[in-house]
């Protein structure tokens, strides 16, 4: 029914939405980008002209229907334009992770057979040239930033602005062709292809149709009442499905403004200047901000510290209730209002959250303290659960029903079921078409009726109908004595401590659990500075006895809390070590979206794991590391292994998950 509506309106593709927006919101800003210290902006009408010029330019260069156009660069209006321009020509945009090294790029470029590659700058062009013969399909490179490009061989290379200029010149000649191609775009044609980050094996190309993107955009825009007045900050990787949904799908459906920061390192300043009304961030961004607030408060004067503490206490008590519209006493309302004046208002302003109406976090579990901190300030932070194959949305939390331990109710149009083994399955209008050139994987993920396995184990809460996720289904295992082993459950508890950036827990098939810990250099470094502890490197700080003592306290506190749960009490950590290097996507230890790759870590650090289980106190190791430019080096270290206290299982009260 809804499909028919959209189809009737002729809004069957992103270019069609663009045309509607240019007409309806012609003078409203569509894109902003900070450049040369000033926010430059383009209205929908201007953006439509730019995109059309680029599409015509692509036609001049010979882009065909069905071609793939890879886009590699940071979030910039020009790169979004390139995606939509490619769609206008009937081609498929394929955004790639800009921090990927040439080898990773070679696989993806070759797999999708991209003929055109749009590169952000010289660095990306160099990588594509380095790939060279490994992706023989690449014919043309278009680059956005001209800097350093003058000396290159331009026989198959153009600056994006020049492509646009040529497109404008060819408008008379190729206008009809372009119109015809736009008109030919169907609701079930491919809108975009996104590569999964791949916690296991090679990345897979997820094909999403116009239907997937537009239905999802419409449903979720309605769910959160998004209008053309929203402001979003586009700072997450363009290759990630979330950015495509927020900055293209929803933005084009609702007609709101996409703001591009000056660069990754200015994101926090730009966030503050824009003050988005609709904002998405993975938990680590919120964690990072909270850590920096707390660090700065430690350095503040005693009066300010006391004021901050007092009003944060008030906020903790009153804030979430106010946000959810629950009854709150008059005196508390007054206290909260005073707090807003003195603390919350200025704090939100500093963080860039003054105008936020809807905020989402997803990707990893967020610590309850962190979540409550933002909610108590009056920031409507919610959780959602999703994946690339679902065009993001599977479940999300409605306003007024927000908790840190659930991921919400099924998004509009999404059906959910839980399999025997606890794995969550979904079916939705956003469900992907297929994995590109990979029918086997498609068949094993999506069944004939359209149900897709998420790979996560979870259950519905009886009372509220909210979904709770326990762990990756394949990671949930058994220990040697048959007790349940859910590593992520424990890791998340550990990661809630600001000192701990990352944790990896082992124990499947073993008689006890052990863990690798990564310290958070910002938090621990600041602590070291305040306590006059000198250190020369990450490695030295990580191995410091006092750091070990602090981490041990955290591990034991987590053990105590894990012991509360009879089902999972076997997951208490007996022995741990603090890793001498940060887990890094460049070394393959994490995905580009910073999810831990267990198998690779277990393989790479087999010697350390062996030491955790054979009772040794120290272990010497050498580790290969990859620098950002792809060169390799080696770190040697001797690591200390620490024992942690465990706690008896509490069987009296049942606090367990199910």
């Amino acid at each position, binding site marked *: 029914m809804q499909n028919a509506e959209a189809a009737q309106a002729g809004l069957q593709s992103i270019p069609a939405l663009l045309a509607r927006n240019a007409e309806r919101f012609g003078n409203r800003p569509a894109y902003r980008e900070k450049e040369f*210290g*000033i926010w430059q902006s383009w209205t929908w009408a201007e953006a439509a002209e730019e995109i059309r010029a680029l599409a015509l330019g692509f036609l001049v260069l010979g882009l065909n229907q069905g071609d793939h156009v890879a886009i590699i660069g940071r979030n910039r209006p020009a790169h979004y334009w390139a995606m939509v321009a490619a769609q206008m020509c009937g081609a498929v945009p394929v955004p790639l992770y800009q921090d990927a090294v040439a080898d990773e790029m070679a696989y993806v470029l070759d797999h999708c057979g991209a003929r055109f590659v749009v590169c952000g700058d010289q660095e990306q062009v160099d990588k594509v040239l380095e790939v060279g013969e490994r992706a023989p399909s690449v014919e043309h490179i278009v680059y956005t930033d001209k800097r*350093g490009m*003058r*000396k290159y061989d331009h026989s198959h290379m153009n600056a994006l602005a020049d492509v646009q200029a040529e497109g404008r010149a060819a408008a008379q000649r190729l206008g009809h062709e372009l119109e015809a191609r736009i008109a030919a775009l169907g609701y079930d044609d491919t809108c975009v292809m996104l590569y999964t980050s791949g916690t296991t094996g090679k990345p897979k190309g997820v094909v999403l149709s116009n239907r997937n993107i537009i239905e999802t955009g419409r449903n979720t825009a309605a769910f959160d009442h998004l209008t053309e007045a929203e402001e979003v900050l586009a700072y997450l990787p363009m290759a990630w499905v979330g950015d495509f949904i927020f900055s293209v799908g929803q933005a084009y459906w609702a007609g709101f403004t996409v703001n591009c920061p000056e660069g990754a390192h*200015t994101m926090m*300043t730009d966030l503050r200047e824009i003050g988005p009304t609709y904002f998405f961030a993975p938990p680590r961004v919120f964690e990072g901000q909270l850590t920096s607030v707390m660090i700065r408060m430690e350095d503040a004067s005693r009066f300010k510290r006391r004021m901050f503490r007092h009003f944060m206490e008030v906020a903790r008590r009153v804030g979430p209730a106010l946000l959810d519209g629950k009854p709150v006493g008059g005196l508390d309302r007054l206290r909260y209002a005073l707090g807003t004046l003195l603390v919350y208002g200025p704090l939100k302003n500093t963080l860039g959250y003054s105008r936020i109406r809807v905020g989402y976090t997803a990707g990893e579990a967020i610590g309850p303290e962190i979540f409550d901190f933002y909610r108590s300030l009056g920031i409507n932070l919610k959780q959602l659960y999703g994946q690339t194959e679902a065009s993001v949305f599977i479940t999300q939390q409605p306003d007024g029903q927000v908790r840190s331990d659930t991921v919400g109710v099924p998004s509009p149009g999404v059906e959910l079921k839980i399999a025997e083994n606890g794995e969550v399955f979904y079916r939705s209008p956003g469900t992907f078409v297929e994995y590109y050139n990979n029918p086997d994987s498609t068949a094993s993920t999506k069944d004939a009726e359209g149900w897709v396995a998420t790979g996560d184990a979870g259950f519905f809460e009886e009372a509220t109908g909210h979904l709770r996720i326990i762990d990756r289904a394949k990671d949930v295992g058994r220990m040697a004595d048959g007790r349940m082993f859910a590593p992520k459950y424990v890791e998340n508890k550990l990661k809630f401590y600001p000192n701990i950036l990352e944790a990896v827990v082992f124990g499947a098939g073993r008689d006890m659990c052990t863990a690798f810990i990564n310290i958070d250099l910002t938090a621990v470094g600041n602590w070291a500075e305040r306590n006059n502890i000198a250190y020369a490197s990450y490695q030295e700080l990580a191995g410091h006895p006092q750091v070990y003592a602090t981490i041990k306290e955290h591990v034991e506190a987590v053990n105590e809390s894990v012991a509360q749960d009879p089902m999972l009490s076997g997951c208490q950590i007996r022995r741990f070590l603090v890793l001498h290097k940060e887990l890094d996507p460049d070394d393959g230890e994490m995905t580009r979206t910073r999810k831990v790759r267990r198998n690779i870590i277990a393989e790479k650090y087999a010697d350390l794991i062996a030491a955790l289980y054979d009772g040794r106190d120290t272990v010497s190791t050498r580790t290969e590391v990859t620098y950002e430019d792809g060169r390799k080096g080696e770190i040697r270290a001797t690591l200390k292994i620490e024992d942690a206290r465990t706690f008896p299982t509490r069987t009296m009260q049942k606090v367990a998950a199910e």
Partner: protein
Amino acid sequence: MTQTTTTPDGRQIGGVLMNLRNITLRFGGVTAIKDISFDIREGEIRAIIGPNGAGKSSMLNVISGFYVPQEGEIWFKGHRRGPMKPYEVARLGIARTFQNIALFDGMSVLDNIMTGRLNMMKAPIWSQALWWGRAEREEVENREQVEKIIDFLEIQNIRKTPVGRLPYGLKKRVELARALAAEPQILLLDEPMAGMNVEEKEDMCRFILDVNDEFGTTIALIEHDMGVVMDLSDRVVVMDYGRKIGDGTPDEVRSNPEVISAYLGVEHA
């Protein structure tokens, strides 16, 4: 004299921009520079190397006009140069960075770089005080140029940060930015990589090459790091105890026996 050559990587190197003839510089009884002659051609990267105390910094100070040599002639753009005041040097199109950073610690990065453009601001003092008319217009124009440099050197995130709070490597980059703000024809860099880690060095190398490539700025630099010098420069002058012992392309210098014994010999031993 005005022949144009093309480097292997496709840059154009023009005629002689600055010619130093038989320069001798003495401080009392100490002779810092002994009868040195060399030239700097337009668009090239010219390095001056040598062991500690060889007279490299003195040489740079002679080029910049800060020291006036007792003997010898300096020809710049075809004119013989006499003793000059610092602002005259700046107006001639010569800018420099310092071995020990010389920035205004309490001022923001932006303001520090703006000082590099003081020579381009001609508004009378009353206009500047009132922020009206010509002063406002000039400030906007100059800010635009400065922002381009900020973008070029990728320091957008520290635009408003006081320089005193920055790490060493970034301060060096801000110094380079300030020198560039003066739109120099010839840029003098006094040990631009000193005290930097490998990553900072690589960044700085890239910026120096990009400056040369994008703006066509002639660059004369002093540097200790041999790897850097050999990779960066088109021609190298080697000094030892105030004398010139070698002059040529990095390859020529590398194979010069006198140079090897005086300087590289230590490393190749």
